[in-house]
């Protein structure tokens, strides 16, 4: 894999092409991993003006068609990081660089994509390993606001935002008991018995339910109109989720959170996507039955219970898939996860080693998140009519030893340079110090 024949590739020429004229390019590669229709060996992909026209083996090219032979490289759709704080954080320990987390329990009108720092050094680092898109989501209280899908290259927030209001984010209240014994508390009067905690837990869940009741009432009032109706930004933030235009992404790890959230969504007839999903494997059948897609960011979490098999989180995605659950992989939200988006591929790779079929592993980084976020008409697979957003890899994308060599977003060549490659080049060329 790492001993590939050097390829001939006219990157400079391609970039110099005037963008105004319609342009058709035929890409040839050792394999095209379409993510929806399998892998085409010695494949070809025809792209016009950034849109895929055809994918196959013997595509007829006209005289105007520019042919780009990628030799031994493998083409994959651009990877999508399904839950991130990318662009909202720079350095975990430096508070001034944090825009990840807002204050307040119910802030549905917060919009995450508006604060993406287009020049965050973390973005090119994610890109360098094949990520062309990321969902940027807000953190904070219970209903934290709306996420947006951004492409990981562009001149500014507006240029980069692919889809605003991609999902509404609901962080399900913690349902596990705090079992800390009374006698270990500094202030034993603050002890809450399991029964009291159950009441608090129920109250928290009711609060969410009631918030949705009120939001529905608002939606009805808005529809009815009338002189007394006044717009409230927070309630406005709920509308697309209520109408089903926008999925609700429920962030939950504990199995009972998951069960409760799924039952709640079913009762309210809401479309949800499960995020984080640590214990989802325990209720794989339920999630399949209720058609709840899962974004799993716990492949590398240590087993939670002392009776869990040591490799259970490596196997979890496979278990979910086998049950019929649509699965995407991600890194946990927050600053730490944002610096590690590039490694999501290897989480999927680990799942693959432990039972997730290769095709599904690829979809878990491409087609599935695109479907969950409602952009599968444009992104997520190498399919005619979709954007020519793809990467060229010198081998198997799931193999750590392979490298992403080229990236295109909507047909445009994107740089894979980053802070890391710049520093690498600089210090690789440091002269030996003179003694």
């Amino acid at each position, binding site marked *: 894999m790492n001993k590939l024949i050097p390829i001939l590739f006219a990157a400079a020429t391609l970039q110099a092409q005037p963008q105004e004229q319609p342009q058709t390019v035929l890409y040839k590669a050792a394999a095209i991993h379409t993510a929806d229709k399998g892998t085409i060996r010695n494949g070809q992909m025809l792209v016009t003006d950034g849109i895929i026209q055809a994918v196959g083996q013997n595509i007829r090219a006209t005289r105007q068609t520019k042919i780009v032979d990628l030799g031994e490289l493998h083409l994959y759709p651009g990877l999508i990081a399904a839950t991130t704080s990318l662009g909202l954080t720079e*350095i*975990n*320990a*430096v508070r001034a660089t944090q825009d990840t987390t807002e204050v307040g329990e119910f802030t549905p009108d917060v919009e995450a994509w508006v604060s993406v720092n287009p020049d965050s050094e*973390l973005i090119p*680092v994610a890109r360098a390993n094949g990520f062309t898109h990321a969902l940027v989501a807000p953190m904070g209280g219970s209903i934290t606001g709306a996420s947006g899908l951004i492409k990981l290259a562009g001149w500014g927030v507006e240029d980069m935002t692919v889809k605003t209001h991609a999902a509404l984010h609901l*962080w399900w209240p913690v349902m*596990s*008991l705090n*079992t*800390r*014994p*009374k*006698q*270990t508390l500094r202030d034993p009067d603050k*002890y809450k*018995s*399991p*029964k009291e905690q*159950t009441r608090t837990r129920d109250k928290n869940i009711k609060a969410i339910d009631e918030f949705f009741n009120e939001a529905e009432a608002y939606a009805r009032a808005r529809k009815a109109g009338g002189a007394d109706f006044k717009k409230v930004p927070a309630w406005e933030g709920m509308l697309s989720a209520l109408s089903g235009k926008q999925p609700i992404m429920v*962030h939950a790890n*504990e*199995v009972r*959170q998951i*069960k409760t959230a799924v039952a709640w969504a079913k009762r309210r007839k809401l479309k949800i996507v499960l995020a*984080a999903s640590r214990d989802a494997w325990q209720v794989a059948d339920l999630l399949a039955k209720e058609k709840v897609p899962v974004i799993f*960011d716990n492949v*590398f*979490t*240590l*087993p*939670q*219970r*002392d*009776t*869990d098999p*040591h*490799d259970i989180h490596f196997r979890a995605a496979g278990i979910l898939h086998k049950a019929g659950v649509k699965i995407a992989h991600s890194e946990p*939200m*927050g*600053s*730490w996860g944002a*610096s*590690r988006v590039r*490694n999501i591929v290897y989480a999927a*790779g*680990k799942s*693959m*080693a*432990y039972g997730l079929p290769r095709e599904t592993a690829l979809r878990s980084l491409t087609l599935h998140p695109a479907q969950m976020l409602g952009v599968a008409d444009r992104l997520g697979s190498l399919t005619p009519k979709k954007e020519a957003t793809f990467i060229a890899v010198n081998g198997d994308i799931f*193999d750590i*030893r392979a*490298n992403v060599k080229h990236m295109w977003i909507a047909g445009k060549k994107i740089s894979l340079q980053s*802070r*890391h*490659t710049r*520093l*690498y080049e600089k*210090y*690789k060329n440091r002269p030996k110090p003179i003694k």
Partner: protein
Amino acid sequence: MKSTLLGRAALAFLIGQFIPPVSLQANEILPPGQRPRPLGAHALVGARVVVKPGAVLEGATIIIRNGRIQAVLPKGQAGIPADARAWEMKGKTIYAGFIDPYLSLGEDKAKPISNKWTVPIDARAGVSFTGVPTTKTDMGRKGPGYEIAGVRPEHRVATEFSPPAKEVAALRALGFTAANVIPTEGIYRGTGTLALFGEGNPNKLILRPDTMQHLAFSTTGKRAEGYPNSLMGVIAVIRQTVFDAQHYYAIQAWHKAHPTDARPEYNPALEALRPVLAKNLKQQIIIEPGSVLMLNRAQVLAAELGFDPILVATGQEWRRPKLTKQIKTPFIVPVVFPAIPELPEEDDWNQVSLDQLRAWDWAPEIPALLQRDHAIALTTHGLSDRKAFRKNIARAIERGLTEQQALAALTTEPARFMGVEKQIGTIEKGKLANLTVVDGDSWFDPENKIDSVWIEGRHFANDNPKPEKSDNDREDAQDEKKKAEPKPGPRIAKSPDAFRGPLLTPKNVIIQNATIWTCGPEGVITNGSIRIANGRIVEVGRKLSPPESFDGIIIGAKGMHVTPGLIDCHSHSMILGGVNEGTLPSTAMVRIGDVVNSETGNIYSQLAGGLTTANLLHGSANPIGGQNQVIKLRHGAPPDGLKFAKAPPGIKFALGENVKQSNWGDDKTTRFPQTRMGVKTFFNNRFTAARQYLADQLREDVAPMRRNLELEAIGEIINGKRLIHCHSYRQDEMLIFMRTMERFGVKIGTLQHVLEGYKIADEIAAHGAGASTFSDWWAYKFEVYDAIPYAGSLMHARGAVVSFNSDSSDLARRMNLEAAKAVKYGGTSEEDALKFVTINPAKQLQIDQWVGSLEVGKDADFVLWSGHPLSTQTICEQTWIEGKQYYDRPKAPARAKALAAERDALLAKARKIGGKENAGVAARSAFFLRALEKAHALNNCYECRKVKP
């Protein structure tokens, strides 16, 4: 006391006529207005008298005179003195008064230190990279004494003894008549006092003013904010205090001979340790180590320091019965048993772990388990509601302790432990008349009412005192009505030993037809074989010489790859009681080797990823941290059995943001150093001091020297006997650190993390320090903004010895895939990349003559992989250490299933009786306490803070 009153009336009527008028000569005549004292002579008639454990007299009579037992008359024997007041005791049983050897009284009652509240260690991983919580450096105590507030051996319970009447009455109501009242605070806590549970003048209640010195492995307590705040720190303090005391005595002797020389200070703390340390005085010391592994540590430490110890058990001895058995000291045994919690919802039971259920199921068996090999005395210590004491003893008896043993553990044994066996503990002539009187024929039936106790001849009726402080809150109030308590039945919990230890221990092993990554000069051998005998590699190659005779197993490994066992040069995965002693800027005296945790599930999960050796490091909270411990993952072995004995000792150092407390909070601005300039200054200071210390040791003309464990460790570095593993990030700090060390003639063992090491790769290579880095972590602190994943390859290319480390209990499960990142970033060859997690860390730790490659003569530490070791699609199939198989993937599902089945069975058992026990909130929530071995310092854990929900 109804029965007693009736008895008295009957007696007066029946036998009053032939008892002569009572003589008042024994009684002191009190001034008028005060209640006159009762008589001094009594005859307790017709009781079942348990003279001592195993010796019962039915229908006997006890004669008491002036507080002492004058005689015990067998049934029918005459001799009741005419002046004795007769007490009808028919239908009652009399024991020697019970003695609690470990009692703390009053508001500041000592909590047992055995259990911690934290999340399970196995659920989390890693330590902090963004800083650790800090502490005050103010030692906070007035007057002369030791410089560390927790060291207060001069404290004497006797001088302050004034027992709270209610609490003492409650203890009498259980049958107790005396106790060793213990000091409650600190590490060296002071001396306890043996007191009777009478009333009045405390001068008269104290039987033995100074019983023993008390020592606890405790970081908690009012003044625990300074040094030490970790378990290893506590142990270091215990050691240093003894050396300080010895020096104190020596310098006093010196001063006598050289009166014009330096005057010794006055130190009451060190003075107070004289009876503990002086051979001729030999005061015993009671040690409460707080965890089963620390019981063992306490014994080792006692031998090292010359203590004569009695240990306080933890209730967790089931975790390491063999290790406990090896301990040759008496035990004081608390009988604190957790109760099944009341959980409102079905799903709540998911939170109950196997470990908690095992601890619950084993708990009542601990007294019997300890009784088997040790002298034991029972204590109420740790019971939040002492009323549970009798019920718990009954449960211990159900589970193997005999009544006779239990009685001894309440009477003769504590008396012997406390050196008062000539005074109390049995009902024999001349002893103090300390008696416990119970209705019926046994105290051990909790239904039998305790009638009264006698203390030094004085009668204390059990007038049913109010519970001292019930922990039954309103939720449990309805439980007050006595329900029939269901019996849990025999133990079904297994020993952890059932699930650990080597799976195969063949004499010889041959692996055939494998692709062998030797990580040595032989390179990669395709279709190769390895022969192992007695834990060592004896042959590696394409073809093995045919063995004359073969007694062992042959592994056909076609399609598989074999690599050396992986080595993690930076781990915190198996450390007990805190990774950082982050209080002082130099804690060179603390040792990870004192606190290796052999009980964590991390050992198994990391073996399952092919790891065989780990360098357990102190955290990075201070410039000079603690001493490290290299271990092998010999799953099942106790802490000392995990140690890589031949590995040279080392020590953790740290530079940068952590040690200057940049991310500890805005108020942390007073500890030196606060800048990188200060860090350098600090090292220069300590190394200069250590150099002087070494020089002074060679002088003969000076006063006796104080043994200084901190400078001793730094001195070992200067002498080339201890390797530095230095947490470091920025190029400037690393360069200056290398130069500073060079000035002291020191070659650094490894630069750990070494994130900007790629910027000074030539200088690192020239100095000869190993570079042990993360593969690709960055951006979590300002000082890692320039960290790049190419660093490993760049440093390797410039000649440095490079390793990738985990610093995380998760990453340690897949170090082979970390190595693959050196191929990806910077194009290191596959063979060299694998060396980043095998021979290179071995070289860095200077253990490469034994491990790190598959070469003849080396330890047979190896991994069988399903495929290419650098592929994400490869799975670790088998892990072997020293020719023993410790992990075998096909066996893993059965193991997991058995553990799950055990939990299911235990849970069913627990739920059958859950909620039906008469237990308070404290006992119920004690169920969730975790043994230190299964606990995890939350605020030291990066992973714990990683995810929001």
